[in-house]
């Protein structure tokens, strides 16, 4: 019985947000004490596709930015966590990775803008990707640091003595073993980048118009119906990604 109640509660907690957003995105005039809005229509959705032709561009740009950030964060996280894993000071290196978290990205964005301007990377695609990378890659580093265990280095040493070159070792041993963690890392970094608003707005100076920026424009227009629609746009892609990527994340426990 308890189990049923908990199940019900969980489903409610998780699906209600989507439901609420969906209802709002299809409605107008939602006045107290009506539980449901007065009118339901597709106007909000249609409007999205008609007047805002910029939106598709934003979506594309967002995907490119997030993929870039996730790719480089995972790559660098992997290489660097590997380099650090054999160090006696591994612990200290890892604690260093928490540093960028200490200030929230919003505050860091304010602080970094000046330097971005100095090196001429403000208001540019590369600037935004770099800034997001600086936030994401320590995260990737932390995730991937947990991968380089004694166990993995035993595998490596074994394959070395079996005569494998560095590249062969990476291709045949390290990469397949790391794949689940790399997938997780990639996904997490993708999400951080995908959800980021503050850094992109500040470093990009509003000129690198990712989807989050467009979405915030809607929210700033004080229209909850458009905001709901915008929120859905933010939520759906990661959900899709998760749906296809989930296997990777589930396999995470395999190596243990």
């Amino acid at each position, binding site marked *: 019985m308890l189990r049923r109640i908990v199940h019900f509660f969980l489903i409610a907690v998780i699906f209600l947000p989507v439901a609420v957003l969906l209802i709002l995105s299809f409605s107008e005039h939602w006045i107290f004490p009506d539980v449901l809005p007065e009118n339901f229509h597709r106007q909000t959705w249609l409007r999205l596709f008609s007047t805002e032709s910029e939106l598709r561009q934003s979506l594309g740009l967002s995907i490119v930015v997030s993929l870039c950030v996730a790719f480089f964060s995972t790559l660098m996280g992997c290489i660097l966590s590997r380099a650090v894993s054999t160090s006696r000071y591994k612990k200290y290196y890892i604690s260093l990775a928490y540093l960028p978290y200490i200030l929230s990205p919003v505050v860091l964005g304010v602080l970094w803008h000046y330097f971005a301007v100095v090196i001429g990377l403000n208001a540019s695609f590369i600037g935004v990707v770099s800034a997001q990378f600086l936030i994401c890659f320590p995260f990737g580093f932390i995730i991937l640091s947990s991968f380089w265990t004694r166990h993995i280095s*035993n*595998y490596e*040493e*074994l*394959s*070395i*003595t*079996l*005569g*494998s*070159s560095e590249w*062969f070792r990476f291709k*045949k*041993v390290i990469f*397949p*073993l790391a794949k689940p963690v790399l997938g997780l890392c990639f996904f997490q970094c993708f999400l951080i980048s995908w959800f980021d608003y503050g850094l992109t707005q500040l470093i990009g100076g509003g000129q690198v118009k990712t989807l989050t920026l467009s979405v915030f424009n809607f929210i700033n227009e004080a229209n909850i119906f458009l905001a709901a629609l915008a929120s859905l746009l933010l939520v759906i892609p990661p959900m899709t990604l998760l749906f296809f990527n989930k296997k990777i994340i589930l396999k995470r426990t*395999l*190596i243990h």
Partner: protein
Amino acid sequence: MRLELQNISKRFGQKPVLTAVDLELKDNQVMSILGKSGSGKTSLLKIIAGLEDADTGNIFLNETSIISQKPNTRHIVYLFQEALLFPHLNVFDNIAFGLQAQQLKAAEIDKRVKAILKEIDLSAHSSKFPQQLSGGEKQRVAFARAIIVQPQVLLLDEPFGALDVDTRETMQKLFLKLMKAYGIAALFVTHDLKEALLIGDQIAKIDKGYLKTYTSQSEFIQDAQSGVKEEIDFWMQIQQSK
């Protein structure tokens, strides 16, 4: 002479791990090294394999110094206590790993892997994954994977430590059979006295970084430090008390 160690020493910081270790391993011979954990045995093996650097000393393989040679070109395979089969590869691919690393032709690999599978009696399991094997089967695959590359020297770090008594006995026999069949020289580290005696043509003992080699089994048994005497005394006492 297959393998020769001269004056190998190693420290971690202030702590000496190995002190002036000399060792000679002849062709087609297995040397058992008896040692407790923390005696420096793992470091010794890793230095021979090239996975760790020695502070001083030299290593010769067939009269040539290999001390500065890269570990993947030394033809010395190091086996861990665990079987360490690659979880993402099936039995066949696990065994073929070393051959693939040498970029042999697929047909050649196929032939050799199949032959060795037969020898370790696992032909039927060729497409299984490691998770589906028992402990003994895993260990057999691990052996086959090491032997198939025909190493100059095989280094084994308590390979049977985690197995149950029966499997352990079978494995010891299989091991000896394979060593002789392929003519491979090996260093076999164990903390089990009986296993050391059973497997080694030569015997050595390592304690606190000092290695002592014995010329013969009888010399080893005579040595008060070897622990053999205590073992015999123990059994005698049991017998007497009955």
